[in-house]
Structures are given as structure tokens and as C-alpha cells.
């Protein structure tokens, strides 16, 4: 007799656990407000990334098309993947002195692992992370970016750090 009671006990216990599970899914079925999907391309205007989000490395330029990079290439040394390449040039200044200046700042987004070391070590805060995250392009070459804008120059009154 006990076996029969156990049989039914097991059966009803099983059914009860199944119904408990169905209660949870049923609850969400009738509560469409709990949907958390973000309608991505539509919400582009309102979608705001967090300030610290590491989207890609950029070099901010001010209104005079001037940046802060002194071409010290500390970022290049610190990058674990070799995704930064700083090419400098010697420019003759008005007072006749030769001075190192940034020629091209190449940033290979395709190789970047967003570890943040370059931004952290930059003594001039010349590079920052921007919040853009839509990196998809049709051509791999487009992921190799030049960060300094054409014709840009070094911002004055920035102490130049020489690295041997």
C-alpha cells in the first residue's frame, strides 16, 4: 500500500514542481512590460554609452586644430599589441632650434585589445578613449586610423617630455 501512496506522492510532487516552473514563465508571458530588449538602431539617438567606456582611442583637437601629443611614443612602448605607431619629424622652429614634432599618429583599431595602458601612461593626456562603438567597416584597411588631423599642430605651452 505504501508503494502506491509513494507512487502518487511522487507523481503529484513532480506535477507540482512542473507547475511552479510554468508559473514563472507564465508570469513573464502576461507581463510584456518586463521585456528588456533594446531596440538598437532605433534608439541610436538616446543610446548613451558610459563616460569611461573604452570605444576607441582618439586624439582630441581643440578649435585651433591643435592637439597635445608631443610624439614621445610612451604609448607605443606600452602597447602590448603594437597597435600604435608614432611617427615624428624634426621641425625647425622660429628661433632656429630643431624640435621633434608629431608627424603621423597611426592607430590600428583591428589590433587593439582596449587594455587602456596607452591612455593611462600618456603624460600629456593627449589621447583619450571615445565612446563610439560602431566599428564595423567593409574594408580592413579602414581600421588603420590616423589620429592627428591633417594640418594639426602641437598645442603651445605644453612641456615637452623627452624620452631617450
Amino acid at each position: 500500500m505504501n508503494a502506491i501512496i509513494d507512487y502518487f506522492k511522487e507523481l503529484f510532487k513532480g506535477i507540482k514542481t512542473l507547475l511552479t516552473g510554468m508559473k514563472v514563465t507564465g508570469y513573464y508571458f502576461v507581463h510584456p512590460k518586463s521585456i528588456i530588449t533594446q531596440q538598437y538602431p532605433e534608439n541610436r539617438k538616446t543610446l548613451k554609452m558610459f563616460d569611461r567606456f573604452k570605444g576607441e582611442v582618439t586624439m582630441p583637437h581643440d578649435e585651433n586644430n591643435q592637439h597635445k601629443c608631443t610624439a614621445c611614443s610612451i604609448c607605443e612602448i606600452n602597447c602590448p599589441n603594437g597597435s600604435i605607431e608614432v611617427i615624428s619629424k624634426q621641425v625647425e622652429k622660429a628661433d632656429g632650434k630643431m624640435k621633434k614634432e608629431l608627424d603621423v599618429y597611426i592607430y590600428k583599431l583591428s589590433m587593439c585589445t582596449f587594455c587602456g595602458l596607452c591612455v593611462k601612461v600618456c603624460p600629456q593626456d593627449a589621447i583619450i578613449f571615445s565612446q563610439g562603438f560602431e566599428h564595423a567597416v567593409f574594408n580592413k584597411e579602414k581600421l588603420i586610423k590616423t589620429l592627428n588631423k591633417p594640418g594639426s599642430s602641437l598645442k603651445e605651452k605644453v612641456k615637452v617630455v623627452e624620452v631617450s
Partner: protein
Amino acid sequence: MKFNIYDLTSFNQWIDKLLYDNLPAFWAMIIEMTLIGVAFLLFYAVIGLFLVYAERKVCAFIQNRVGPNRVGPYGIFQTIADFIKLLMKELIPINKADKFLFNLAPFIVIIASFMAIAAIPFGLGLHAIDFNIGVFYVMAVSSLGVIGILLAGWSSNNKYSLIGAMRSGAQIVSYELSVGMSLVTIVILAGSMQLSTIVEAQRNGWFIFTGHVPAFIAFLVFIIAGTAETNRGPFDLAEAESELTAGFHTEYSGIKFAFFFLAEYMNMFIVASIAATIFWGGWMPFHLGPIFGEWTLGFNNVMDYIPPFFWYIGKTMVVIFIMMWFKWTFPRLRIDQLLKLEWKYLLPINLFNIILMALIVLMGWHF
């Protein structure tokens, strides 16, 4: 018989008479068959597309998602887009497969479901074949699909497919018993195997109410066994994507895969239709029996204004929703547990239930 505004019988008879009067009997028959065939094909396609869409939406809402919402308003054309995609996809030939059986398998699966749908009464006068062994026929035909699944698994020459097919075979052979037994319970109550008679017998209350306890048990067993027979979750061992990648249809692509896919949904529809017809009165509107008193007459008349076809579809959709709800809630069973559920629980309960029902019918304890 009472006049019913939605009765299509006279319309059908008019077409029949028109054809036979104007054409030789042979051609009239051919045209009639073609007409019915085309109607079923259209119905089949529409229901298939709708069910895929419904499943995606239901599972999306259960899972806190929106579901398809890009193609058309609320994504209603999503399944059509999917279907076009499947049509255009390459049919990948399998080198070491048994070509003939490999190509035959999807057709067997889809024809089996096609044959079953023919015997289902959709409404008053919307009934293609009204066998006197309707229940028996539907059961027999709907279980033919397993042959297709076995063939698909075997002929693919893929180890996953073979395991999936074997599982499916074991599963359908066992659960066929429960499906049959639970229907037999109601056949005892109805006293007929003819689907039209069964529906008519529920004019004064659906069997699930008039047959009370045993009918309810039979309904539960039928839903569980029916879900198992359609290879749907939690009984989707034949596909079991986390174990067997895609089971028996691993090697199928394009439209052949679509056939399996469509057949699965149609089988679900058929099982739901049978459940609705046998237990919930099919197209029969919700009627209260005379035991509730005189006022029920008015209530019944109001109910009669809803066309029978909508009653039928509504009931079927409710059953389908329950089956979807199962699938999106439960984990999958293991093969031995699947068989244990059948042989240890469903079958003994079912046998006991038949005796109970026989007793109730004998003593007249039903409503």
C-alpha cells in the same frame, strides 16, 4: 436539426451538384478533389507560417524578449521571409547518403501530416472525409511520420542522425499507446469513432466537462503523450540540439529541412486539433447542458453566433499554446526517463482510467 447560419453543408452540396450535373462523373470527381487539395494546401501553408510566427512570439514573450519585429508590422512577415530564404538555399548533396531514401524522407513526413489533417472537422460542413473510424484513422496516419524520421536518420549516414532517429522510433512507438488509450477513453464515452458524431455528441457540453474525472485525466495524458509524439520539447530527444546538434535532420538543408520543420508544426497542429475535437468539442460552441435549467437556451444561442470555425481554431490555439508553454519551460528528458514516464506512469494510469470511464458510462454517472 436546427438551422444554423454558419452551416456550409448546403453550399458544399450545391457545388457538388453543379459539378456532377454539368460534367461527366469522372471529371467532376477530379475537379472536386483538386479543389479540396488546393484548399488544404493553402490552409496548410497558412497555418504552418502562422504557427512558426506564433511560436517565436510566444517564446519571445516568455523569455522577456520582443521576438520578430523587423519584417512587417510586429514582424508578421518574418516567417514568409524565412520561408523564401529556405527556398533559395542550396540543397547540399551528401556524398555517402542513400540518395533515394534521403530525398524520400521529408516527403513521407509531410505526407503523413497531410493525410491526418484531411479527417479533421474544421467546422460545420468543413470536413473533407468523414470516416466512421475517424479517430482510428487520424491516429494511424499521424504516426506514419516516424517512418520518415527513421529513414532520414538512417539514410543521412550521420551518427547523430542515426541516434536521433532511433530515439524517435522508441519514443513514438511507446507514446502511440498512450495517445490511443486516452482517445479510447473518450470513444467509450462517445460510443463512436466517427469524428462528426463525437463533435455532435458534445452539443450539450464538452466531453471534458461531461466526462469529468476520467475525461480530465485522459486529456492530461493526451496532451503529454501528444507533445511527445510530435517530438517537441521537453520530449525533443530526436533533435536534442545540445546533444545531437539537430538529430535526424542534421544533414538536411534548404527546402528539405523546411519540410521537416513544417511537418513538425503541422503535427503539433494536428495533435492540438484532435485534443480540441475530442475533449473540447471541436467546432461545437460552448453550450451548457439542459441540467442547468431553461435559461441556458439563450446562452447557447448567443454562443452559436460565433462561427464554428473560430471556435475550432480558438480551442486548437489554446492547446497549442499549452504545448509551447511546456516547451519553453521544461528541460529535456533523458531517453530512459522518457520511457519510464510512459511505461511507469502514463500507461498504468491510462489503463485504470479506461476502466473508470467504462464504469462511469455503464452506471450513467456522466452528465
